[in-house]
């Protein structure tokens, strides 16, 4: 299907056009942020950013840089639209979700511009499926104003150490409390559920700890229902960076390596439920 990225002339051009040999590179990342039905797509020359938000408290972003695609072209400075993420994922995985070695779904994505649907051409084993998904006006996105200069505490952990912990979080607890400190307990995840409280402590000298930069003792609580979806991103990732700023806003950044060894990122931002400055043990 020859769709070339020509400058728009008599409606031939596409605001966004991209090709991907293995649609899984996109679908697995999108699944990691799929906790709401709709997402906002932002395409720039550097790549694609897919944003999902909930309750004005949490925002997740999946970044797929242009280099991941075999072909990636954006006509304007940026292209933005709102789309149903559930429908998009269903289309991307239309040939099934099981990954047999050697087989993959090839994807071609085209978007003419404002008001037009997103076109997907998916091919596997000679079978082609064409999907048209309607797009909407993009919502205004939250700006957590989280920048590296304001970071108070930061640690980088190997995801392996957190995966089980997140999967087994006591969901009868309303909050997940995160304590980060230059002193004991260094890094602690706590829940307060029906059975009682549970604390998970990671010492700073643990083999799992790749980097430990905590300047101040901070204890913050976040709604556990908002953070639970990040477990998907954690499951895919090899490393996670956990940062908090002076207001207690939380940034979780997941480094994900895809099947071809390429690196992508997913990040979650969450605002605190309550601000507790004293460590609550």
């Amino acid at each position: 299907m020859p769709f070339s990225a020509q400058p728009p002339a008599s409606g031939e051009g596409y605001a966004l056009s991209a090709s991907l040999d293995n649609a899984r590179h996109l679908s697995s990342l999108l699944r990691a942020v799929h906790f709401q039905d709709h997402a906002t797509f932002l395409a720039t020359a550097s790549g694609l950013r897919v944003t999902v938000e909930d309750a004005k408290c949490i925002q997740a972003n999946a970044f797929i840089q242009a280099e991941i695609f075999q072909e990636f072209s954006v006509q304007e400075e940026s292209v933005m639209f709102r789309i149903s993420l559930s429908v998009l994922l269903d289309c991307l995985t239309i040939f099934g979700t099981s990954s047999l070695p050697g087989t993959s779904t090839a994807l071609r994505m085209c978007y003419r511009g404002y008001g037009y649907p997103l076109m997907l051409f998916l091919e596997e084993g000679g079978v082609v499926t064409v999907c048209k998904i309607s797009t909407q006006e993009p919502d205004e996105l939250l700006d957590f104003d989280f920048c590296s200069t304001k970071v108070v505490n930061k640690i980088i952990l190997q995801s392996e150490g957190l995966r089980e912990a997140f999967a087994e979080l006591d969901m009868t607890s309303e909050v997940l409390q995160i304590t980060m400190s230059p002193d004991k307990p260094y890094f602690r995840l706590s829940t307060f559920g029906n059975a009682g409280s549970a604390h998970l402590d990671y010492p700073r000298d643990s083999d799992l700890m790749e980097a430990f930069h905590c300047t101040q003792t901070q204890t913050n609580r976040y709604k556990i229902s908002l953070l639970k979806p990040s477990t998907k991103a954690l499951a895919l990732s090899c490393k996670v960076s956990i940062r908090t700023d002076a207001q207690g806003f939380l940034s979780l950044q997941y480094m994900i390596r895809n099947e071809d060894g390429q690196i992508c990122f997913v990040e979650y931002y969450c605002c605190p439920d309550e601000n507790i400055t004293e460590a609550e043990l």
Partner: protein
Amino acid sequence: LSRIGDELYLEPTESGLSLRAVNSSRSAFASFLFAPLFFQLYEPGSAGPDTELFRCKVHMKSFLGIFRSLPSLEKSVGKCLILLKPRASRLVLQLHCKYGVTKTHNLAFQECERLQAVFDTQRCTSRLCAPARLLADAVVHFPPTLAEVTLGIGPSGKISLRNYVEDEAEPSKTMVTELWLAEDEFQSVAVAPGSHITFCLKEFRGLLSFAEASNLPLTIHFDEPGRPVIFTLDDTVLEVHLVLATLSDLESNSQSPSTNGVSHLPALSDEFADDLESYMAAMETNEGGSEGPPSPTFPLRTPQPAESEPEEEEEGAVPGTPPHKKFRSLFFGSVMTPGRPGLATTQEVLAEDSDGE
């Protein structure tokens, strides 16, 4: 233990940590006693002259939730520390995992009375000991939904297991499964021919899986119908008891309360299929008679000043057992000290208790 009750009773004693459970109708009781040697460190705390060692109960689900995934526990957890903090009202379970990670669970507990069923394996007239595998293989033939099973000894000494069918069930619509095991399949047999007991399979299955997994032989101590059946597992560091109430028999109800006479059952004929219906009829128990004297088959509680623990006031036939189930509830009261003069059994013990191997 979770197959029996919703609450886990923890009782540290000088001889080890005892974990116990009882079911809501008080017809099943189990205890697991872990000797101090089982642990790397065991400090039961100190009991003063007037105080006892602290004990408590926690919600079974909360406790089990901590040990949710056994395979991952085995891989990642090095050791587990259990602390009972009465003043903080918390039972602390701390798992030390690999990479230096520590998981601390603080469970709320409730103080409780001592949970102890009255039973005495020495007083049981019959005893069977078998590898858990044998019984597990036998029990697999019964549907998972089966409630009660009857263990019986045929006149020739063969051991049978049959599903118990409610009297109200129509004989033509019910399926009866019976299997016979030869004596030599058991490690030891000391039984009275013609004896039989009917007990709840569900609670027994739980113990059976544990026995199979730990590869321990299972000993069954039983007596007459109506008297509890006691299953035991013994190990150097672990002692397990499961006490289940058994269905009492029509015949034994007519005995006077002061004797503990032997109930005479119609002998199981070898052509049991022909006698099935009459046998079933004989198994019928007297449901309406419970307003009469207290159960003749349970030892009565005597006030014993030496037993300083405040015990629960439980009598024999306690309501709370669902009426259509004719099980007597187990007696929970002072623990009988062996050798006390009490209700004498008129039937002699056929074989002395010996160690299960």
